[in-house]
């Protein structure tokens, strides 16, 4: 399945992809058909192991967003199975869905911050929903804001921040409940190149801490420069899955 051959494979792949690290994401024969008949994903098989940094690339409409929605159980696969951390998402009861989502950190192109809440409150929000007490929340929020470098902006509203700062707030929120997996949908899509690199550096650091990162992107420069695992989608199919690859096919 995994195409280890290819010009990029002589580069060092992340250590965690070797050996028997357990799969964080496991998709088997997944097909997603939307009501109305549009097929967004066809027979997708995908295994992502703990500690990997994986880019999902492909043109608009290729199924990237659908794939991410399946992983956070915002959509359900029409056929096939989706496992997160060994949990079959199709067998999940309504009450269990939130618990799975809390194991995943999500980051979006449009940040999805609450405009009426401060940076600190936006981050704390992800912990409040778990029912954690204010006393346990405060130190965790302070720590994660320090990690993304937003301690000074803690009291500001999202509207007072730059795009990069807003995305760092979103990353802090995604990280605060200590997830095993970060799912990022075009996290640099709204940012200029310099700021994009800042965000990528931050995600790399988080990956080095052992968090699996799955990032859908159009940013060819970033993908090619980093030489990580690249999964390319086209018309709902996985057309390429290479370690240490570039944004475009190189053969």
């Amino acid at each position: 399945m995994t195409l280890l051959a290819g010009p990029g494979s002589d580069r060092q792949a992340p250590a965690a992809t070797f050996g028997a690290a357990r799969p964080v994401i496991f998709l088997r024969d997944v097909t997603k058909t939307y009501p109305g008949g549009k097929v967004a994903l066809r027979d997708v098989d995908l295994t992502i192991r703990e500690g990997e940094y994986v880019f999902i690339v492909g043109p608009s409409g290729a199924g990237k967003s659908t794939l991410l929605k399946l992983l956070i159980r915002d959509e359900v696969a029409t056929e096939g199975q989706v496992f997160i951390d060994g949990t079959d998402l199709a067998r999940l009861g309504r009450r269990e869905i939130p618990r799975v989502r809390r194991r995943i950190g999500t980051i979006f192109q449009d940040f999805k911050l609450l405009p009426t809440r401060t940076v600190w409150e936006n981050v704390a929000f992800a912990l409040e929903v778990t029912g954690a007490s204010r006393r346990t929340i405060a130190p965790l929020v302070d720590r994660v804001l320090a990690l993304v470098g937003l301690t000074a902006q803690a009291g500001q509203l999202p509207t007072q921040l730059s795009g990069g700062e807003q995305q760092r707030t979103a990353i802090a929120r995604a990280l605060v409940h200590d997830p095993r997996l970060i799912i990022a949908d075009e996290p640099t899509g709204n940012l200029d190149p310099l700021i994009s690199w800042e965000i990528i550096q931050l995600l790399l650091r988080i990956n080095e801490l052992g968090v699996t990162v799955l990032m859908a992107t159009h940013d060819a420069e970033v993908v090619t420069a980093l030489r990580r695992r690249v999964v390319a989608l086209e018309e709902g199919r996985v057309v390429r899955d290479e370690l240490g690859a570039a944004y475009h096919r190189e053969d």
Partner: protein
Amino acid sequence: MIPFVLFSIRRAWQGFWRNGLMSIAATATMTFMLLLLGGFWIVQAGLSAGLQYVEQKVQVVAYMKEDATQAQADEAVAAVRQMPEVQDVVYVSKDEALARFRSNLAERGQPDLTGSLDTNPLPASIEVYLVDPTDFGAIVTQLESSAGVDRVDDVQQLVDRVTTVTTVIRTVGIVALVLVGLTVLFIIVNTIRLAVTSRAEEIEIMRLVGASDAFIRWPFIFEGALVGVLGALVTLVILGAAAAPLSSLMLGFFRVLPLEFGTLVRDVAVLVLVTGLGLGVVGSYVSVRSYLIR
């Protein structure tokens, strides 16, 4: 459980103030609608009391024979007085009948010619006021069989006419009240739906970070309750301020106050509070629900 309720209430409070403009708009709409409903209820109660007053004017009148004795009259009065259909019985003696006739003439400014009469031509009578204007049959029978009674007025036609009119007015009043009620229901629920829709993104983010349905729902329900109770209180304050001029207006229009003014005040307060709270809660529940079910 209790921490969760406290948490939800705190979040509801924050949500209310953080979306100040929307909250104020929703509360204002709630207030207007409850004013409409409460005002209509009061008018309806006044109308109803007025109709009752008109219906109580329906009376069965029995005229005594010229030679009837006072004992016969007392007996006839006592007989009807104990009947359950009877609200009140008034005995009008010959002298009282003449006095009434004269004062009626004087009121209309017509010359009093009765002074030229040798004897009093007016008969004594028994006036019976009814609990229910349509329920006169047994009383008429009783009066007709009493000794000393000459004849009993036929009240059938009068009763028919009065009850036809009052029934129509009552029905129209109730239909109008129901229509107003439905309008109020629709507008309030829609306003709350709008307020919730404006926060669809907030709900989406809550879902994404793993909030349970209960966690998302309850703050909104408490917020809806807050809007409802606040709107109800403002409404009651406005109605309270308007109570004095309103009651004097009603006294002028319907000739009587609704029989128990205290009961009406209590009814309106309960109506406004329950409607505000209920629609606030139900409106929020229904609106949030559509975002939770996927």
